[in-house]
């Protein structure tokens, strides 16, 4: 038994390791860029709503429409649908760099929505107190809105990260590799069930770890 386990890792270890690294790369880079786009987008979406600091009905509805449109497209279709755009942005449509653009387009609007629901939880009264103290809107955004909802934002980002891991599984279709790709190509197409089991097991650990970590940070940031 122990021999067969060590045999397995001798055969598959490097491939699994490489796939894991690819998954981390895709999730890490795509998440970072998605946050950079999604967070401000979420703030804009929230603040352009009626009765908010930057109320703008037109902008609000446009943002809503665009976010809903992108979120209606399944990732696997999005991946091919925006191929020309990906080519234009990344110069390639294959490999890890070829999949970052679709991952970001898939995740950023999702993060914006999650941000919106977090930011809407912030007590209107605190914002008003800061307005009454003569504090500028951009300072209120960071020092009140985002600060007060940070615990909820972290939970949202945890959800987004796990969703992103799911999406990277399909990235194999454009040759970006990753754990999902490994499980599909070897586990499913070549009937090597053990590879499938190990990959799924790693994914379970990964998701569990991220969720636990997110919950922990969120609880730590929560002070009430």
């Amino acid at each position, binding site marked *: 038994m122990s021999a067969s386990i060590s045999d397995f890792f001798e055969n598959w270890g490097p491939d699994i390791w490489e796939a894991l690294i690819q998954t981390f790369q895709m999730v890490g880079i795509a998440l970072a860029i998605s946050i950079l786009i999604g967070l401000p987008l979420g703030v804009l979406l929230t603040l352009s709503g009626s009765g908010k600091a930057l109320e703008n009905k037109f902008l609000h509805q446009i943002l809503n429409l665009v976010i809903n449109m992108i979120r209606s497209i399944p990732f696997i279709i999005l991946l091919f649908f925006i191929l020309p755009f990906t080519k234009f942005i990344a110069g390639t449509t294959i490999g890890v760099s070829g999949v970052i653009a679709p991952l970001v387009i898939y995740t950023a609007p999702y993060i914006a929505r999650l941000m919106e629901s977090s930011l809407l939880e912030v007590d209107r009264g605190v914002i*008003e107190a800061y307005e*009454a103290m003569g504090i500028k809107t951009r300072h209120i955004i960071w020092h009140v809105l985002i*600060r007060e909802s940070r615990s909820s934002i972290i939970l949202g980002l945890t959800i987004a990260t796990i969703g992103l891991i799911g999406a990277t599984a399909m990235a194999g279709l454009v040759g970006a590799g990753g754990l999902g790709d490994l499980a599909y190509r070897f586990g499913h197409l070549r009937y090597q069930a053990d590879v499938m089991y190990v990959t799924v097991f790693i994914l379970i650990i990964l998701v569990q770890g991220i969720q636990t970590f997110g919950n922990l940070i969120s609880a730590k940031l929560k002070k009430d």
Partner: protein
Amino acid sequence: MIHFENITKVFDAKSKETKALDDVSLHVKKGTIFGVIGYSGAGKSTLVRMANLLEKPTTGKVYFKGTDLTTLSMSKLQEARRNMGMIFQSFNLLKTGTVYENIANPLKLTGVPKKEIQARVAKYLEIVGLQDKANAYPAKLSGGQKQRVAIARALAHEPEVLLCDEATSALDPDTTDAILSLLDRINQELGITILLITHEMNVVQNICHEVAVMDNGRIIEQGKVIDVFAQPKTKTAKRFVQSLFNDSVPEQLVNSLEGSGQIVTLSFVGESSGKPALAMVTKQFDVYPSILSGNIAQLKDQPFGRLVVHLQGNATETQKAISYLIELGVIVEGYKKGGKQHVS
């Protein structure tokens, strides 16, 4: 200091317009504590939020130290707002910040130098009596303590005006008294002008110099607290005074006494409250007063008392006694079931 001129505010919800403020003019003098009292929906909250333009008037002008705030650009308005502190019914503190951060962060954001921030936080935490809570989070504080933090946060900007939006309405009676005496001290020691709104008459009674009574978006009565207490003119003002001085007498008693003399309400203000007026009446006239109900309370600077008295005696003697009481400075009103009626 603050001057509202013909303020009207119309909120238009989907199908109908509501007039929250209807041609309101008000002047708050520097150094005073000005109370605006009214039932909920009277428009008082909208009014106090006009003072720093959190709510913009539909028509009318808001002057602060002679400047019309409605004409200012956003950045000029923000500058003006730093000179007006504000506290709220729901305290509105950052949940994620300690007491220290709650006071220090807004100072940082308004460009107060770092060294000065520490000194100010320490100074104002001491004034509100929370020096030992600097590192506590609001969740660990009681309602009264949270309001103290909010007061310290407002004062730390060293404003000339403090606006209080139902600041004691969420607090129990003891805590309310403590916060009120703190506000009074702030007014006296720091010379800060206070505009407060409330639905509790005891707030007005305890600390206000002047009061305006609001009903249905209008100011229906206005003046020195003592005057409004002694002779409320409108029904709403009377009800508020009644809420502190419940001088209603059981109807059966009133009926049984009606034949044998007059029932009057006597209000004692300032000087006259110190005189043994009823004893003097008994000595000088052939009337026998009996007290049916009585109250005395301390207004901000003077005592105020009210008695409902049955004067037993013949009509001429009673009339003489009443004239004498009026001479002494007592305000005499006829008692009427379910309300009061003036006698001349």
